[in-house]
Structures are given as structure tokens and as C-alpha cells.
């Protein structure tokens, strides 16, 4: 017994003999000891859970900075290509205009159309090579990079933004192979903590809602068997309800913000929480908003008659993007934790159910065997006696 106690003390005292002696000098001081133990447990609890959480967040932030640095060095050759193509196209248009000079509209239209079609085909080719209409600086803003890191280590992998430099790809490989185990650690920790707190909550609610505790006691007295405190197992339906409400909250939230339909929003939440992550819907990452803002700014500078309200609106949308990304980050982390919690709780229930089922099956087998023996036993005996 003292051995066990000592083992609990030693990691905290860490070489401080004075504290250990103070504990041992007042063994009669029970409440104080209990408070101390409570405090110690609390501190260790904070250390483990919060430590892992902080590690994840720091890891993600470091990764975000690294990816920003690496990916912003990417020289987007396609942008220059597109610019050149556009210049070419306008040059061709000018030459056509010069040639036909508004006299023959049909001829002009035909030629211009041919040029435009050519241009369109060229653009489509460039897009296949990876042109997205945004420069790397616009894509790899800090929140977006953070979201990217998170999608790597949680294995969702939206794929709306991907590393394009060789260094970025190599770093992604290394980052994933370190980050995924770390995330697993976080996941298990978080799952355990959430499961414990949810179980506590459920148990207290269960105790509250049981309106006839004395009746139970009476039953127990009548039965003559004193039932010890029955272990309450959270039913899996409760877990499923929790998950369902979480998904529903996400659905409504994202549908409101992103103006998606409810089905699309629900689809997004489900595919994200299942870690499929198609990336056809990603909150806060609409396709060309940043470029639009820039274009509007330019337009405003060049043209006084343009509407300044439009620019303000676009800017607010662009600013919103960042907060949305952050909230999506939190939503995903918490959602994964909830999934882990449900796994923990349901595993317990499944284990109990399985044991019950096994016992049932064993009893059933035994029963059928006995019956079988009872039915077939006598003819076989007769046969045996005949044989001998």
C-alpha cells in the first residue's frame, strides 16, 4: 500500500524530498491530502490533454508557415503564358479590325469568332496544366495554409489547394508521416476525455430523471439481494443523436454562410466527418474571389464611374473567408473528437452486447445439444445394442 502511494507521489515531487516528507509527516490530515491529490490529478489531466492539443495546434501553425514559405516561391509560368496569350489575341483582333474595318460585319464576326475559339482552347489547355487564375500569394494566405495543414494531418485532404513545387510535395510527405501519428494521439486522448465527460453528464442526468429511487430500494429489499450501483452504459442511440445534432448544426451553419442548399451542406458535413473530403464544397474557398477583389480595385482606380459599394462587398467577402476557414478548422477538430467519443462509448456497449450474445448462443447451443441427444440418443442406443 505505501508502495503504491509512493509511486503516485514521485513524478510530481521530482526530487523534492521536502514535500514528500511533509506529506508523510501528516498522514492523519485526510482532507488536505485528498485536496492535494485532486489538484495533482487535475494538473496531470491538464498536462496530458492540453499538451497534446497544444502540440497539434503548434505543429499545424509551423506547418502553415513552412508551406507558405515554400509554396510562395513557386513561379507560376502559366500566368505569364496566359498574359502572352491574351496579348496575342488582342493583337490578332486589332489586325482583323484593321483588315475588315467595320465594313463587312459578317466577315469580321467570323474571323473574330475563330480567334476567340482558338483563345478558349488555349486557356482550357493551360487550366489542365494547373492554372487556377490566382497567384501563389493569393492562394497561400495564412488561414488557407493552416487549413491545408489540418486537412493533411486529419487525412481529410480536400484537395482544393495542393502543393505544386517539388519541395512542397516532399515536405508534404514528411509532414504527413509525422503529423498523422501525432493526430492519432490527439484523437485517442480527446476521445477518452470527451467520452468520460459525456458519461458523467449522462449519469447525472440519468440520476436526476429517475424519479423513484425509493421504489428501487424497496425492490432491492424485497428481492433480498442488495444490488450494488449498477454500471450505467451510455446507449449507442444517445451517441448517434449527439453526432446527428452536431452534423445538423454544421449543416445549418454552413448553409447560412455559404448559401449552399441544405442537401449540399449536409453532404459536405458528412463527407468531411467521414474523412472522404472530395473538395467539391469547401467553406471559405470560393473560386476567384481574391482575383475579383483585385480586379474591382483596379477598375475603381481606372474608372471613376464604377461602383465603390461593389468593392466593399467583395472585400468583406474576402475578409469573411479567413474567419470561415478558422471556424471550419475548429468545427472539424471538434467533430473528430466527437466521433472519437462515440467510438469509445459504443465500443463499451458493443462489448457488453457481444458478451451477452455469446452467452446466449452458448446456452442455446447447449440446449439444442441436450435436446438432440435426448431425441437421438435412444435409437442410437438401440442400434448399438443390436450391433453388439
Amino acid at each position, binding site marked *: 500500500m505505501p508502495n503504491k502511494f509512493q509511486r503516485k507521489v514521485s513524478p510530481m515531487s521530482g526530487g523534492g524530498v521536502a514535500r514528500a516528507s511533509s506529506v508523510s509527516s501528516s498522514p492523519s490530515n485526510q482532507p488536505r491530502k485528498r485536496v492535494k491529490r485532486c489538484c495533482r490529478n487535475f494538473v496531470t489531466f491538464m498536462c496530458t490533454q492540453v499538451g497534446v492539443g497544444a502540440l497539434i495546434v503548434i505543429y499545424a501553425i509551423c506547418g502553415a508557415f513552412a508551406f507558405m514559405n515554400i509554396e510562395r516561391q513557386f513561379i507560376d509560368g502559366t500566368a505569364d503564358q496566359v498574359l502572352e496569350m491574351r496579348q496575342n489575341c*488582342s493583337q490578332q483582333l486589332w489586325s482583323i479590325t484593321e483588315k475588315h*474595318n467595320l465594313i463587312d460585319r459578317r466577315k469580321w464576326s467570323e474571323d473574330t469568332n475563330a480567334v476567340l475559339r482558338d483563345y478558349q482552347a488555349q486557356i482550357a489547355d493551360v487550366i489542365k496544366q494547373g492554372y487556377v487564375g490566382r497567384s501563389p500569394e493569393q492562394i497561400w494566405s495564412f488561414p488557407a495554409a493552416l487549413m491545408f495543414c489540418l486537412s493533411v494531418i486529419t*487525412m481529410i485532404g480536400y484537395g482544393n489547394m495542393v502543393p505544386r513545387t517539388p519541395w512542397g510535395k516532399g515536405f*508534404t510527405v514528411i509532414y504527413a508521416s509525422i503529423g498523422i501519428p501525432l493526430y492519432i*494521439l490527439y484523437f485517442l486522448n480527446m476521445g477518452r476525455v470527451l467520452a468520460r465527460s459525456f458519461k458523467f453528464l449522462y449519469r447525472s442526468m440519468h440520476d436526476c430523471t429517475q424519479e423513484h429511487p425509493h421504489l428501487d430500494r424497496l425492490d432491492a429489499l424485497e428481492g433480498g439481494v442488495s444490488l450494488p450501483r449498477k454500471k450505467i452504459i451510455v446507449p449507442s442511440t444517445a451517441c448517434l443523436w449527439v453526432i446527428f445534432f452536431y452534423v445538423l448544426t454544421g449543416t445549418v451553419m454552413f448553409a447560412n454562410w455559404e448559401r449552399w442548399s441544405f442537401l449540399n451542406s449536409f453532404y459536405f458535413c458528412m463527407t468531411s466527418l467521414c474523412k472522404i473530403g*472530395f473538395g467539391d464544397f469547401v467553406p471559405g474557398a470560393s473560386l*476567384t474571389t481574391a482575383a475579383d477583389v483585385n480586379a474591382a480595385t483596379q477598375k475603381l482606380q481606372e474608372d471613376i464611374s464604377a461602383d465603390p459599394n461593389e468593392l466593399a462587398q467583395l472585400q468583406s467577402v474576402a475578409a469573411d473567408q479567413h474567419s470561415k476557414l478558422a471556424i471550419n478548422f475548429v468545427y472539424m477538430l471538434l467533430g473528430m473528437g466527437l466521433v472519437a467519443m462515440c467510438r469509445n462509448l459504443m465500443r463499451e456497449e458493443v462489448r457488453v452486447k457481444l458478451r451477452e450474445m455469446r452467452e446466449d448462443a452458448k446456452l442455446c447451443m447447449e440446449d439444442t445439444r441436450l435436446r438432440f441427444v435426448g431425441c437421438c440418443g435412444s435409437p442410437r442406443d438401440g442400434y448399438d445394442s443390436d450391433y453388439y
Partner: protein
Amino acid sequence: MSSRRSSFRRKEKPAFDRFKDHCRHFTAFMFSNVGIILLVTFYTIGGAFIFQAIEIFEYERLKLEKPHRFIARNFSGEALTRIWDLTSENISFFDPRAYRRRVNDVLLEYQRAIVKKQLKGPDVEQWSFSGAFLYSLTVITTIGYGNITPQSEWGKLVTILYAIIGMPLFLLYLSNIGDVLAKSFKWIYSKVCLCRICPGVAKRRIIRERRKMRQLARALQLHDMENARGSSSYSSSNSTSTSNSSSSGDYSRSSKHSSSLVDVPFSGSDSDIEREIRGSTDEITVPVTVCIFVMVGYILWGALLFGRWEDWNYLDGSYFCLISLSSIGFGDLVPGDRVITADRDKVEVSFILCAVYLLLGMAVIAMCFNLMQVNIKNNIPCKKVTTYSFTGASRPQYSSCKARIQGLFSMQKLLGRSLSYKRILLFTVVGD
């Protein structure tokens, strides 16, 4: 287990019964492993047909009901009229630079519209059978490349249902196949790397190892003795009851550990060695490094394969393999994407290749986790003992070491928990 015991009890079993037993085992094996593979394959193929049908049907229906949504906006026509207007407006002052700047603006908008349309997603033509097959595979393995996504509402709903049913099925597949692969890998490892295929070499090897172990154990004991003497003198000088009791308790515990460690190698005799060589391969632990090598080798092999097939360079290939096998699945590199216009047959083959590679690769990773879990469970207590007895004569050093040991202990607990491979798989795939 029970069947084996019963067969031991009755040695005089007739040949026919034994044959029947074998048959039964074989059938069970077929059902458990081959059956699950077939189940997963058929589920995926069925999903492919369903998704293809839904997407094409919905596309046709929408086209009939709401044709205005499907007439492609004539971007080039709009651009054309705008340019015409510009030209007719500015024809009076013929300044080529101003004209070109204006035309450039029009072109920029036109270009943006094209980019938006192009990035928004491919059409219904992508839902060929092989594309749909890869899609349903990425759903149940939770890779989710996202190069093909359902556009219709029914497609989305069915995807959710399909994922909810398919993912547990896939987990079952993984745990089953991972088990089988782990067993066979252990067998191969014992035959090849531990040289059990020829008994003489193996015997000499085991004897050498035991000698080493014995020496180590002796050294451990010596250290223990010194340690105990030092700590007892320390506690007597300090004369506090708690530290004394603790150190003596620790000493007894550590000595117990080391004595158990000493006992094992001393009992080695010839028959024992024989038994170990002949024994089942279940007790063998494959080192972690070998597992990691297997995983890295599989990824590199995939890089080679896809590099040859898809004209990717090795970095791209290994990047694709790791991203796919860890079920991240960005979808920037997808097999069959680049050659989609070139050759139809090659696309089909590459889809199948990718599917087989993914299914096998996830099972291999499951196997590696399975082996690593066993290894870590066996290894960490051993490490604990060694740290325990080798460290410190002085008290502060000792306590810090103890803290470290406890850290190790908790780590072992955690790893043991996390590395139970079914959970990891469950985790890797669904978020468990």
C-alpha cells in the same frame, strides 16, 4: 483451439475424419478471406453501376425539365458582340493602344468566365464505368480524390448511404486481410531472415543469442546489487521512513524483474532450442524497422509502377502513393487523368491497376501496424527493466529516471492502445 485439443486427445482418428476436418478448415478459410474480398469487390462494382445510372439518369432528366440551365452560356458570342460594340464606338478615333487596352479588358473577363466554368467540374462524360468504379472505391476507402463528384441530389444522398454501409465493410476487409498477411509475413520472416529453413544455422544462432543474453543479465544483476547498496546507505543517512520503504520496495521489484530475466536464458537446453525452431511462428516478433521498410518499399514500388505507367516523375509518384495510402487523397494527381484524351483502353487498365494497388496497399499497411503492435507490446517492458536497473546510485538521478520510466510506461499503455491495429485502421479509415 478446441478442435486442436480434441484432435490431440484422440490420435486414432480415422483418415476420412481428418480429411473432413481439413475440408472444413479450408472452407472456413475461403469464406473468411476470399469471401470478404469478393464482397468488397462486388459492393464496389455494384456501387459503380448505381452511381453511373443515377448520374446519367438525373442528367438526362434535368436536361429535359430545365433545358435553360444546360444550354452553355455562349461566352464567346458575348465577347464577340462586346468587341464589336467597342470597335464601332471607337472607330472614329483610331488609336490602336487604347483600343487594345479595352479589348484586353473584355478578353480578361472572358477568360475568367472560362476558367470558372472549367474549374467548376467536369461533365457527365466522366461517369464511365471505370470512373464510377474508382469513385465508389474512393468513397469506401475514404480517400476521396474528388476529381469526380456527384452533381445530382440523388447522387449525393446515395453517396452518404453508400459510405455509411461501405466503410464498416471495408474495415472488416482490412482487419481480415491484415491478419492473414501478418501471419504469412511472419512465416516468411521466420523462414528467411531467422534462417529457420535450415535447422543447423538457426540452432547456432539461437545459442549465440542466449549467450549474449546471459552476459547481459549478469551485468544487470551486478548493477542491481550496487544500486541497492547505494540506495540503502543513502536512505539510512537520510533516516526518513518513507524514502527507505520506497527504495526497498523498488529494489525488491527491480530484483524480481531482473531475476525473471535471468531465469529465462539459463533454462536453455537442446530440446528447448529444438522446440523453439520447430515451434509455431506466432511467437516471433518482427522488428519495427522491417515493418517500416516494408511500407516504404511498397510506396517506392508504387512510385516506380505509376511513374512508368502515367509518365510521372518519381517524386510525383511517391507523393501520389503516400497521399493515397494514408487516405488523404488530394486528387491533384489521379491515375488515368492525363491520358484520358489519348487512349481509352489505357485509361481502363490504369483505373484497375490503381484500384488493385490501393486495396492491396491498405491491407499491407494494416499488416505492418499489426506486426508493430505486437512488437511494441513485447519490447517496452524489457526496456523498462534495463533503464530501471542501470540507473543511478544517487537519489535525484534515480527519481528523474523513475519519472522517465513512468513516462515510458504510460507511453507503452498509450501505444498499446493506439496500436491495436483494428482501432488504428478503424481510425485511419473512418475516424474510428
